[in-house]
């Protein structure tokens, strides 16, 4: 299980490939049947407005605790082999990845369900806040996340 909250830009598909190759496959050789992943990326539009950039604020300490709890809950509810979760904070530009969730399991049902559940739990519970930079130096806080179901 790996959980990263970091300011640096990252390449989600490279992260998944590397973690799978270096950690998941060696830990469970021949046992991995399914991997489900989700990558959330910054768009250049929201609520009808062009968005120039984004600041992602978080609550250091609580964010990691809450994410860990979400992963532990998923591990208790589904039979999983491994999970990788990576979330950006700080200053982001459009097209940059914000979040990656990758779940490995023996069978597809578990990977699909756990991956989506982790994302929805993260969206509703993990203390992150998005501030959007709009045209003309304006900014606004995103007030709530869209529905995921």
């Amino acid at each position, binding site marked *: 299980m790996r959980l990263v909250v970091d300011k640096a830009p990252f390449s989600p598909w490279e992260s998944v490939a590397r973690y799978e190759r270096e950690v998941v496959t060696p830990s469970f050789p021949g046992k991995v049947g399914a991997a489900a992943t989700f990558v959330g990326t910054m768009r250049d539009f929201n609520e009808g407005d062009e968005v120039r950039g984004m600041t*992602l604020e978080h609550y250091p300490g609580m964010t990691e*605790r809450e994410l860990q709890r979400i992963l532990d809950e998923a591990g208790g509810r589904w039979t999983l082999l491994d999970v990788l979760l990576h979330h950006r904070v700080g200053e982001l530009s459009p097209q940059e990845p914000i979040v990656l969730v990758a779940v490995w399991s023996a069978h597809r049902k578990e990977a699909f369900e756990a991956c989506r559940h982790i994302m929805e739990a993260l969206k509703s519970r*993990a203390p*992150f806040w998005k*501030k959007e930079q709009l045209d003309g130096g304006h900014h606004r*806080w995103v*007030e709530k996340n869209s529905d995921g179901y």
Partner: protein
Amino acid sequence: MIGCSDAVRKPLFEGNSMTVKVKFFASLKEQMGCDGATVEIGEVATAADVWLQASGGKALPPNVLVAVNMEYTDQNQTVTNGDEVAFFPPVTGG
């Protein structure tokens, strides 16, 4: 910032007091004018009391989330000396 710091230096409660750390995040931080403060408050207090003290008497906005020692709770939770009490708007990560 100054309004915030002023408020925290005036205990509203009589008797023995305790100290809690208050944190504000995101839009609430901007509205409050500071990212938090150390609050001296009467010995028997809830998170709502801490809010009142730290905000200088402002009403707690209805959608504000409350965490004590980095665990979600509600405004009625009693706080203990040394606790960290955080107030923030709905989360919007992911």
